């Protein structure tokens, strides 16, 4: 298959990359752009480890073709934190609450959680559990993940961060 050249904005940077038409976005991000923070746990859209934002909306990047991202904006977990020293509140909360074990689901969990909080800054526990139902974790039983997300509710900072990141401005 002949490669196609696509141009996309990744974490605020314009990137140009030649991709085969069947290459998925997660493969393009990981193998071509070396953004390996996004994980592939299944390749069939079941585990959510590959969650990124496409034009601000969370998607499974394993179900998205790289060519679909042409001319669009992608935010990965590497682009969620506002800076190299400052983390997104959800990331801080995951650390403080022990929500990270093996860490393989974590990038997707963090992205889904931040997206939820930017949509629904006052999310309650059922809506957090519902929002994370597409992200599988095998280590934590989700308990501390849910606690971490709920800890961000009401601190005010999360919605703004989430929205900024979701729009690809972070």
């Amino acid at each position: 298959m002949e490669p196609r050249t696509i141009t996309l904005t990744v974490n605020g940077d314009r990137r140009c990359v030649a991709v085969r038409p069947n290459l998925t976005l997660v493969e393009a991000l990981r193998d071509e752009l070396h953004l390996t923070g996004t994980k592939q746990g299944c390749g069939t859209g079941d585990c959510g480890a590959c969650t990124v934002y496409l034009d601000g909306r969370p998607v499974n990047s394993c179900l998205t073709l790289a060519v679909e991202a042409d001319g669009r904006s992608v935010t990965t977990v590497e682009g969620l934190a506002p800076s190299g020293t400052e983390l997104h509140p959800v990331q801080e909360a995951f650390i403080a609450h022990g929500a990270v074990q093996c860490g393989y689901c974590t990038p997707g969990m963090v992205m889904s959680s931040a997206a939820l909080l930017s949509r629904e800054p006052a999310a309650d526990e059922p809506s957090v559990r519902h929002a994370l139902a597409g992200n599988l974790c095998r280590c934590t039983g989700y308990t501390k993940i849910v606690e971490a997300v709920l800890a961000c509710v009401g601190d005010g900072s999360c919605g703004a961060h989430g929205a900024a990141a979701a729009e690809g401005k972070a």
Partner: protein
Amino acid sequence: MSEARTPPAAPDPAARPVSGPPESLIGQRLPRPDARAKVTGAAIYTDDIQLPGMLYGAMLRSPVAHALIKRIDASKARALPGVKCVITGQDVPAIRYGNWRLVPELQDETVLATDKVRFIGDEVAAVAAVDKDTAEAALALIEVEYQELPAVFGVDEALADGAPAVHDEHPDNLSLRRDIDYGDLEQAFAAADYVREDTFTTHAVSHAYMEPCSALARADSDGRITLWTSTQTPYYVQCLLARTMELRENDVRVIKPAVGGGFGGKMELRPWDFCAAWMARETGRPVKFTLSREEELATGRRRHPVKITSKIAFRQDGTILGKEVTAKLDGGGYNGMGPTATFLIGNFGAMLYKVPAYRYRGIYVYTNNPPAGAMRGFGAPQALFAGEMQMNKAAEELGIDPIELRLKNAMEPGDAIPGVATIGSCGFRECLEKVRELSGWDARMAAKLPGEGLGIACYSFISGGVFNWFNTRYPFSSAEVKVFDDGTAQLTTLAADIGQGSDLILCQILAEELGLKIEDIRLVTGDTAACPQSDLGTWGSRVTLMAGNAVRDAARQVKERLAEMVSLKFDLNVIHEIACGGGHVYSKSKPSRRIPLGEAVAMAQRANRGRPLKASGYYTPRDVGLVSPAFSFGAQVADVRVDLETGLPEVQRMFTVHDCGTELNPMAVEGQLEGSIQMSLGYALSEELLMDRGRTLNATLLDYKLPVAEDMPPSVSETVETYEPEGPFGAKEAGEGLACPTAPAIAHAVHQATGYFCRELPITPVKILRHLGREI
């Protein structure tokens, strides 16, 4: 909570407070130092690594369950542009390997099939190509002619007269037997007032770790191999890769990057480890394999399906007199870790209660299913599903409350399992009392409602295995501790953190011993070429106890040298006890007699003509029986409501009380327990590898149905405090034994709610409705 994330302050040990006893790190809810890298995506897992010139590998797997390989022709695949290497069983040494080095006849696998395939997914050939698409295309060009053989897919079928033999060396498909005998069983059954016999079957489930297996190998020009692999046992992989490649062990370097979970599924050398290394040497280019989720679920290791028959004898008052257990394990096509599972099921069959007479007959049976392997609890979830279901049924028929029946027979500190183990710390009775209170057991049992029920089940578990099936010639755990004159320390160990957080726990133990902060400790780990020989890796809940003891051993030797410096400087009486704390080394009786740790290190170096201050520590369990140096205990109650129309069991709440000795880091312990409940809820209710004549029907995570965040019931956990003398600071296992009680506790609750007594996991609405006499 933020200390571990802030960069270490400039070392100024003298500025640290020394008045009063320094704050202990034991029992602190410390966050993990690796968490920052994991939340930002910076943590590096094997598949994240790309090396220049790297090739992509793919495995060709058998599409049939049992066949002779009549012919393999890879010439078309080799001719495909972009293909750099193709190997089949004919191209590599046919060396048998397996973790059971102690008994070589149990090593029954070759890295690629030679003359025969034994399950759907058996590895037949491997390809390395310039990209993934080319590798996949090449697989389709390899011609394999199979002569199909009759196959067997269940233990009874495999044991039947005339059944086809999976391995020619075992015409009866019986790979091995393990027996345990003690006490006078005939006498026990003759004296019994009440005897019952039940048969239970358990099913195959997947570890479903989130990170699929991945291996990346590079060959140096001198032929030495470096392998990055997603493993929980880098030492085993090093030794077995060397053996299968006919190299010396020291010619193989295994590096364990961050690992995305293992749960027992990543503790063997696997074919892709070998194929990556072999083809890297053949091509001179790095080769990487990463499995698909479909490969993981359809062909990967799984928890052994077991058929267990248990016969138990009681006196009328509920005292257990004797027990006889037979277990038939469906091993699939190869042994893997099956011999250990066969032994452990026998032990777990009589570890929780005082059983004066016991007979166990375990057999490991070859079938043409994908091979089973170690998985969280390793034999205990199956043994305790049978054992605890039977206890509950016995309680019902004896007219004794199930908790009372357990209290009557519960193991206590100092109890011996004849010839097997002596129980050290044990808070089992306290767990039972506490879970009764926590769950409101008595009131609920007195007022039962249709469709609602409480159920109970318990567990005991090991803290590391005593057995040396790998036949290592090294200590079971090793650690090297170095201290520096800037007041910091370095811990080097091959103990393998695969996500459970043991790196933090070992640093916590060292920091506690040396009176330093977590951020003063640099950890070097996960590299067989850099770490001391050896550590057996992560399995059997061994790391905290065994590697923790090795760390303490090394730390104490370093402290001894530091204490000499304080003694010398202040000319202390020899009776002074000298301790480390708050960044200082000081006299306990005269704390003002103190030196910053870094300064004491500098003095020790000067006294020793510049030689760095370091020590090696080791731990190997000796003279502690046949199973484990320490045993944990726990009790769990499930509150379940069953929809009597649909048969759907819904867990309302879980109550857990456990005894893990000292909780070194409660946040880490909670994480282990919470994760265990998720995995075990799936085992009880939703997860099952559905098989049809050796083929896995649900090889996607969507169809496999592990519980999601919305499925998790509220859960309450409490701890019973004990102190385990064999464990570091009194600690022992947490979170693996809990893989056992959840399924029988839920099944018991379902029995209370509906009368359906589950003898065959998982518990499904269909089974419940059938019991209720409903049309399906």
